């Protein structure tokens, strides 16, 4: 019930705004903000009520929806979706506050889109029914379409269409996959009852994976992202980078890995190679971008490459790191977009060459920008490091793929410093241009927008345990699902044992036990 | 009643049809006379009083004149429709009466014969269906005349009739709910002998709405915009003369009579009056009940004439406003209130009071809203339109 409240409260806000939009701009904004904050506060109840000792779904609600087709309203969260839900509810009020003065036309529509988007995103993270998942997945496209298409920049139509078409292409494949699963699962869309092995699992895996890879976006499906980001309004970018991209990685961890472990194992080399290419490629291309938003967009490609890498390491450290990195990326890239938006509002330009020496004029901005930049680079003590470190460690130590991949991925860490610092230098340092000499520093509202994000950036960096401990058991379940299946696969394929190096005590036993079971079951 | 032998059935039906049809024709003539006389009385003048006693034969004289006048068909008209139109007006008016029970029943030669031509179980729907056809004659006649005034009159008339038909239909829903029948005889019988049981008290707002809509359906003052002399010469029948015109004319009066009869049946207790209809045994009770019915109808017809000389003609927008903004809400409210209260209390008294109160409230609200909605200035040219859309379309 709590979960449903969280999911649908924003929708209530949409209705409220629709009904009360005659009250004027400030009323609309206040309602939206109130709803956003309220949703976040309620969603904190999910955190406090979350039982970290088990990794199963909690706060589950299941109600028949279209029983004739085996569709139910089935929602719940585990340690993985918990964080994404919280990230969503956390970022939305921030976005509302950030958009306080920047929307000139159609304010009520903007706020309604934003809130509707929140419902869609929350639904995606909570849905335990494939059909419901798909409904939310698609429904969230619509408000995003509006956000970019109406309140976007000059080439917004091109960007929107590209964004929607890319996503739709992916979702079409996913829909096929969902239907195939439906028929293999006794005509039920219920995720919790799904259990493999499925026939044609490799095709199904690809169907799901491509949909998610487009959303992530994984190289070479990423070209919609820079366009969408550049044309989207600030808030749109924040949501896009902060939450929407996570839906791809979330989909991988929720569907691709546990449902098709064998196929996942089979495709791991390819996918990981793409991820690593994405990491380096994104970083290199980000380096030479003249546009701040594009730069951040390409940096997202790079960062999300890390996440995918961690996911396909298929071990607890890597996956936990990936989940944490999803949150981190949401925070730091979201913050970057907010900051870019803030100077855009002042200067109406996002071109790096138009800036320089801003730190003299805007010291508070500079400090915040610095911290966020460093978080994005992955400086220890800030959040980015913890996630990246765990991903790389997990992939390296007992990853399911060669160490060469990890070595190249680590090069991405160097490149991150290159492009971020270069950008920072060009924007913040140097001589102050005349045109920028009068830019005001951040006002109280903007500082309030940024402070919570900074808090979490530091918190996760210094003391990530609360975050890790809640997701630990759920990640373990995913890993077990992956391992169980692929262990059997390994057994059949007689893979030489040295590919499974570095299994530590307990896990090693577990592994053996699984193999034994597999043998006896034969 | 049901088990009449076939021959008796046929025979009695023929008799009834002849009786009622003639009664109707005679009634029309009587009405024509009465109207002119009453008009005269109301306007403090004499009216026709030369032909026969007090001019009572005046309608016959008029009829003869119409019959013998040349049957003129203008060149520019669409001939088939031009000829057909008067009939299409007259026939619906004529056949409506078939389902109206004009008395209880009469026992002749041991056979109990109900005083009703056709006793069908969806009588009220029949009436609505036939009533809705009346507009065809008007519209087609207007169009066939190929005359601007006629066409405008026809359009006005059709718009008006469609609008008020809605009210007409909705107003009786309450009655139907309480009676649980579409059967006219059942409705009449359900009301019982005493006026305080009659539907017009229980459904007072609906009754008023129904009556008003009935006025509109007959195209009579104050709803005679389709033939408003000052604006449209004579409206849809401008091009008609002689017997064809007479048919239009008769149809209007028949509408009045039938409408009154239906009103009496639905709302005014039909042939009931303090149990008078039951005295006098099987034969006479039938006659008396018919008499009661006849008198009630006549009184109601007098109201028609009375209203005609009391109220001025509506402006077109007023007409539409009145229909859509007053009558419709009132009837809809009446339905809701009736249904709700009937289900909850099952008491006719409560339903009656509730209806009255609700009707009053609705009227007040709507009136308030209309007053607030900036009263229109005195009639201007732009107000003299069919409907805003219609005229735009024609331009």
């Amino acid at each position, binding site marked *: 019930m709590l979960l449903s409240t969280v999911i649908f409260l924003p929708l209530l806000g949409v209705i409220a705004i629709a009904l009360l939009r005659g009250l004027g701009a400030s009323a609309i904004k206040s309602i939206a903000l109130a709803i956003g904050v309220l949703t976040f506060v309620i969603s904190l109840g999910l955190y406090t009520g979350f039982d970290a000792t088990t990794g199963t779904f909690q706060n589950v609600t299941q109600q028949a929806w279209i029983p004739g087709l085996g569709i139910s309203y089935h929602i719940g969260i585990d340690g993985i979706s918990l964080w994404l839900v919280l990230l969503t509810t956390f970022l939305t009020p921030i976005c509302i506050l950030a958009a306080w003065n920047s929307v000139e036309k159609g304010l009520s529509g903007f706020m309604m889109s934003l809130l509707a988007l929140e419902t869609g995103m929350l639904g995606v993270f909570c849905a335990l029914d494939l059909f419901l998942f798909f409904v939310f997945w698609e429904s969230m496209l619509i408000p995003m379409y509006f956000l970019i298409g109406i309140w976007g920049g000059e080439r917004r139509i091109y960007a929107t269409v590209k964004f929607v078409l890319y996503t739709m292409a992916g979702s079409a494949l996913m829909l096929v996959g969902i239907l195939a699963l439906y028929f293999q699962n006794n005509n039920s869309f219920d995720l919790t009852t799904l259990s493999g092995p499925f026939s044609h699992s490799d095709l199904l895996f690809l169907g799901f994976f491509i949909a998610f890879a487009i959303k992530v976006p994984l190289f070479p499906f990423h070209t919609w992202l820079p366009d969408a980001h550049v044309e989207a309004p600030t808030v749109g970018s924040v949501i896009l980078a902060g939450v929407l991209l996570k839906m791809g990685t979330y989909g991988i961890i929720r569907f691709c890995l546990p449902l098709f472990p064998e196929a996942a194992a089979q495709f791991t080399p390819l996918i990981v190679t793409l991820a690593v290419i994405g990491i380096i490629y994104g970083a290199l291309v980000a380096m030479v971008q003249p546009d701040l938003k594009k730069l951040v967009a390409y940096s997202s490609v790079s960062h999300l490459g890390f996440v995918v890498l961690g996911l396909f390491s298929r071990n607890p450290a890597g996956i936990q790191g990936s989940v944490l990195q999803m949150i981190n990326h949401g925070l730091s890239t979201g913050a970057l977009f907010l900051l870019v938006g803030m100077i855009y509002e002042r200067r109406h330009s996002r071109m790096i060459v138009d800036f320089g020496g801003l730190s003299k004029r805007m010291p508070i901005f500079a400090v915040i920008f610095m911290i966020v930049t460093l978080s994005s680079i992955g400086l220890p003590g800030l959040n980015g490091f913890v996630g990246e470190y*765990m991903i790389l460690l997990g992939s390296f130590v007992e990853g399911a793929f060669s160490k060469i991949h990890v070595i190249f991925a680590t090069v991405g860490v160097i490149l991150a410093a290159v492009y971020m610092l270069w950008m920072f230098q060009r924007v913040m340092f140097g001589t102050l241009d005349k045109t920028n000499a009068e830019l005001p520093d951040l006002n109280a509202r903007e500082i309030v927008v940024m402070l919570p994000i900074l808090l979490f950036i530091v918190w996760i960096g210094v003391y990530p345990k609360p975050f890790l401990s809640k997701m630990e058991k759920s990640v373990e379940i995913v890993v077990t699902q992956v391992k169980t299946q692929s262990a059997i696969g390994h057994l059949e394929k007689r893979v030489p044992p040295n590919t499974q190096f570095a299994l530590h005590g307990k896990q090693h036993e577990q592994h053996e036990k699984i193999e034994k079971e597999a043998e006896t079951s034969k | 009643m049901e088990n009449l032998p076939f021959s008796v059935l046929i025979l009695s039906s023929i008799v009834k049809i002849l009786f009622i049809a003639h009664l109707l024709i005679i009634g029309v003539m009587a009405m024509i006379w009465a109207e002119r006389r009453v008009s005269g009385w109301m306007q403090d003048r004499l009216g026709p009083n030369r032909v026969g006693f007090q001019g009572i034969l005046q309608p016959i004289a008029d009829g003869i004149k119409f019959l013998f006048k040349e049957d003129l068909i203008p060149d520019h008209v669409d001939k088939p429709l031009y000829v057909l139109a008067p009939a299409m007006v007259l026939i619906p008016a004529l056949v409506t009466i078939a389902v109206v029970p004009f008395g209880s029943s009469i026992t002749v030669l041991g056979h109990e014969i109900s005083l009703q031509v056709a006793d069908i179980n969806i009588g009220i729907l029949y009436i609505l269906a036939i009533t809705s056809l009346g507009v065809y004659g008007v519209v087609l006649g207007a169009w066939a005349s190929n005359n601007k005034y006629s066409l405008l009159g026809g359009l006005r008339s059709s718009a008006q009739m469609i609008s008020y038909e809605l009210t007409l239909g909705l107003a009786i829903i309450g009655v139907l709910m309480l009676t649980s029948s579409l059967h006219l005889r059942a409705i009449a019988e359900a009301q019982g002998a005493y006026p305080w049981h009659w539907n017009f008290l229980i459904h007072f707002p609906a009754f008023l709405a129904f009556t008003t809509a009935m006025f509109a359906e007959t195209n009579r003052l104050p709803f005679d915009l389709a033939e408003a002399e000052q604006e449209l010469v004579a409206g849809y029948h401008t091009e008609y003369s002689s017997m064809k015109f007479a048919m239009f004319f008769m149809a209007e009066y028949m509408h009045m009579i039938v409408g009154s009869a239906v009103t009496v049946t639905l709302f005014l207790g039909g042939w009931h009056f303090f149990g008078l209809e039951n005295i006098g045994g099987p034969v006479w009770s039938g006659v008396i009940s018919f008499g009661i019915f006849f008198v009630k109808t006549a009184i109601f017809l007098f109201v028609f004439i009375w209203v005609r000389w009391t109220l001025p003609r509506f402006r077109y927008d007023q007409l539409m406003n009145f229909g859509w903004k007053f009558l419709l809400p009132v009837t809809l409210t009446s339905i809701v209130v009736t249904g709700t209260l009937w289900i909850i209390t099952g008491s006719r008294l409560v339903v009656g009071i509730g209806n009255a109160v609700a009707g009053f409230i609705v009227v007040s609200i709507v009136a308030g809203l209309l007053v607030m909605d900036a009263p229109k200035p005195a009639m201007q040219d732009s107000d003299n339109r069919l409907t805003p859309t219609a005229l735009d379309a024609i331009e």
Partner: protein
Amino acid sequence: MSLELIVVLLIAPLVGFLINGLFGKWLKGNEKLSGWIGSVAVLISLICSIIAFASLQGGGTPFDETLYEWITGESFAFNIGFRVDALTTVMLLVITGVGFLIHVYSIGYMHGDAGYTRYFAYLNLFVFAMLILVLGNNYLMMFVGWEGVGLCSYLLIGFWYDKKSATDAGKKAFIVNRIGDFGFLLGMFTLFAAFGTLDFVAIFDAAEADNFQKVFGTSTLVIATLLLFVGAIGKSAQIPLYVWLPDAMEGPTPVSALIHAATMVTAGVYMIARSAVLYNIAHTGEVVAWIGVLTAFFAATIALAQNDIKRILAYSTVSQLGYMFLGVGVGAYASGVFHLVTHAFFKGLMFLTAGSVMHAMANELDMRKMGGLKAKMPITHWTFLVGALAIAGFPFLSGFWSKDEILHSAWGSSPLIYIIGLITAFLTAFYMFRLIFVTFYGESRVEPDVASHLHESPPVMWVPLAILAIPSALIGLLLGWGGHDSWFHHFTKSVFPEAHHEASGNVVLFMVISSIVGLAGIAFAWMRYSKRVPSTEPTNALYKLIANKYYIDEIYNALIVQPIKNGSHYLLWRIVDNGVIDGIVNGVASVIQIIGGTLRRLQTGIVQAYIVSMVLGIVLFLAYYLFFG
């Protein structure tokens, strides 16, 4: 020693940072206060360090405790934990001691700068990060500090951010360091893969017991140590990643003294000394030693032809760091660390005196425009002379002891290394005294308007100089008397394993040789520069090559930086991204458009045509099902 002590030690600079950083706005009007807050914070750390040091005296057991769990999971646990042993306390004393003096010095040096509080905030943050680096009881903690000091270095080099060269230098420092960190990270991963932990003690114990996963077969530890060394190369500015350090002189001079001479750059040495066990087992010390000695020589040659005081000192630092690596590489860990300590003092001293000169000369750094400063700035001159003598290996001054120990150990490892080291020692003495003679002696070449302001620095600056001069001169004698049997060796004995190569030969003989070489260098410099003006330098090709630092920066730029930049821009972005991928996407779109364009001719716009086809369809379907289905 208790956890509380360590926490206070660690937190004090952080508190200083927070006060200066967050409330800097309100401290602006009162810059002295801000400076003293920073200094006191470090002083507290210094006091704590001394307490910690004292408690280790007389065979106290090393302190090793966990503060809290940081990144933990089922199969891994990384904690915030501290280890304080002899090596740590030595580092602590150097960091907090030199750090404190430099803080005090900065109060005067930075006087009137717009970013005064920011400066102290950064400096305190640096001390905090450096303390984490040396206090950590595992590699991850070390890495945290490692990155932290890198950040502070970046911030402080680019402290005057409106100067493009400064921010460029800061960026370069950070990125080059990152390349090193890349190695460090991978080294850490390898270690974790092998040992399942990153705790020093656990790793060393397991390594000694040969009880670990052979991730890369028998060469596991070799790979791990070499990767770690890559980190050290980056941080400690060795070949080929030394290029950032000379540029780093763009920062304020005290920063150069603290970070780029005394502490941060020695982190690599500390790391190898800390991992001595691993290097011993893996036998990778030789690589370290060779890189070290080559760097030492290479940097020294560059220093010969520079005219910028701070750059000379920078290359000298690189060179001396090479010595330290040479030391730890040949297994003389204690000697390497000892050189680290002495170098911290005398090089810190020299940088500060250079700062003093700059202060007086209105930020002039080119020594060709100086000369004869001795008269105007006696204290500066004398203290600098002490430092220069120390580095030149003048007998019984501190550099003499530490350098000699290293060279002595090198002989045991490889005579070739020894010889190169010896040549480097000669070069060191030569370029240092070239600096002294050109700057402080001879006739003044100072420009007149600067000359009128020429003055000795205020006490807040020269007092630290004087204080620093004392240990620079004497610390070698105090701690290093007795060569390999000195107090320092005994104190750090518990930390380091036995070296492979026993130093052989007569210690005294080596000392004599070193002294002679050092004195020869001084003499040679005196001959060449006591009279001559440096503008009449030779202009042959070799000199040009050296003066231009072997064109290394240019080569890097041409071979690495530009290709990456242009490749990213033109190949990756313009061609691959916009051309190929978007081309495919748009191509698919246009194909569909063409198909649609063809098909749309079917759309006649006439409703009935559509309906006819619809009805035709119905008829055919029905026919099929009724008659053929």
